[in-house]
């Protein structure tokens, strides 16, 4: 910590100062130069994802702690080396021998109002609003954490999406198409699409049809319904399940 970073003569309640609008949502940032945030060594942001919005996978240079203020949704983190444990049932091909999984991916988690979510530095994660109201969460990024070895400026790396306002593009945009095609063993046209160069939707995009992925059923349908049946230790009644 630099010696002059915590000269706080007066404290103020502060609101976000920068807004980045995307197709299906909004990211608001508190001023990173604010003395209070600089003293604490953190960056703060507030994310609003509209219904059917998808916050494309990103990772940042510090650990993240987020709190869900409103709404519900789904989130996923892709952790290095972890297997794709959510698997869609096998389907048979024409010959009944071409056995393959329709899709498999890493674990996804439900998120709802009141949840705290954490992600380590460098872990790619995404959010999807599958509820009926905007999903809003406020997040702290601890840029002074040992996990961050860059400077104390919040840096967000995007696996997909681009934001012409900033300007910010996906990581793939910086690679040559040819070496990208080689790396993924895909066609050049597909590699070109990976770069998202003509995409102006921003980092939160609209999903025209409901986002399909493998996930277990949820208990109950609404928070209110669940709260009617608190168990002896505040847990929900599970008598309808074996």
């Amino acid at each position, binding site marked *: 910590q630099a010696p002059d970073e915590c000269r706080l003569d007066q404290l103020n309640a502060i609101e976000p100062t920068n807004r980045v609008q995307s197709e299906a949502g909004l990211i608001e940032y508190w001023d990173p130069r604010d003395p209070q945030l600089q003293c604490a060594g953190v960056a703060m942001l507030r994310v609003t994802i509209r219904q059917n919005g998808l916050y494309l996978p990103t990772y940042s240079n510090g650990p993240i702690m987020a709190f869900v203020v409103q709404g519900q949704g789904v989130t996923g983190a892709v952790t290095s080396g972890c297997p794709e444990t959510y698997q869609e049932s096998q389907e048979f091909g024409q010959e009944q021998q071409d056995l393959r999984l329709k899709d498999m*991916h890493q674990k996804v988690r439900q998120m709802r109002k009141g949840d705290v979510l954490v992600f380590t530095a460098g872990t790619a994660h995404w959010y999807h609003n599958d509820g009926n109201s905007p999903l809003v969460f406020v997040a702290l990024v601890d840029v002074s954490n040992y996990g961050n070895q860059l400077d104390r400026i919040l840096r967000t*790396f995007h696996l997909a999406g681009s934001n012409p306002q900033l300007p910010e593009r996906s990581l793939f945009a910086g690679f040559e198409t040819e070496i990208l095609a080689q790396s*993924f*063993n895909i066609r050049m046209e597909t590699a070109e699409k990976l770069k998202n160069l003509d995409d102006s939707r921003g980092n939160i995009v609209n999903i025209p049809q409901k986002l399909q992925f493998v996930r277990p059923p949820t208990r109950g349908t609404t928070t209110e319904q669940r709260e009617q049946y608190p168990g002896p230790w505040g847990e929900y009644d599970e008598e309808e399940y074996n």
Partner: protein
Amino acid sequence: GLEETVCTQRLQENLDDPSRADIYDPEAGRISTLNSLNLPILRRLRLGAARVFLHRNAMVLPHWNMNAHSLMYVTGGRLWVEVVKSNGEAAFKGEVRQGQLLLVPQGFAVIKRSESEGCEYIAFRTNDNAVVNMLTGRLSAMAGLPVGLVANGFRVSLEEAREIKYNRQETMLAAANPSAQGTAEA
């Protein structure tokens, strides 16, 4: 008692021994990693390393360092390297030759491909348990995403999204076959 504890602790490890490789592909090459699990003193130093041998036209598949910087010093041959920063712009795109050093900062995405004579380098890492996240391959972040998310995120068909997720089955090293471009296997 120090003479039997601190003074005798292991301070060295040979990373050139091929039989010690942690990642090995007969077509592409090998990687030996050094961290605090195989050399405990590194926990105090918070440092690690990786020794990489690439055959001719082999690739270290695209990845980012989650929790460390990586300082790569080329000990033999030449390497084509592309490094991309957080805003999607290339921070480096070019050849790194024997005797040269290149920093790959934490979080920056990087692809490496050896030239015709192959390449070997040592990567110093500023974390004793440096973790790498792959962007392609069997254990990659892309493989861990739902196929529908990949399709929507990149505005590609479900079939193309499956190709992006599954066409590359290697984990970290792969032989680069220029003739394979444009003939993707489903």
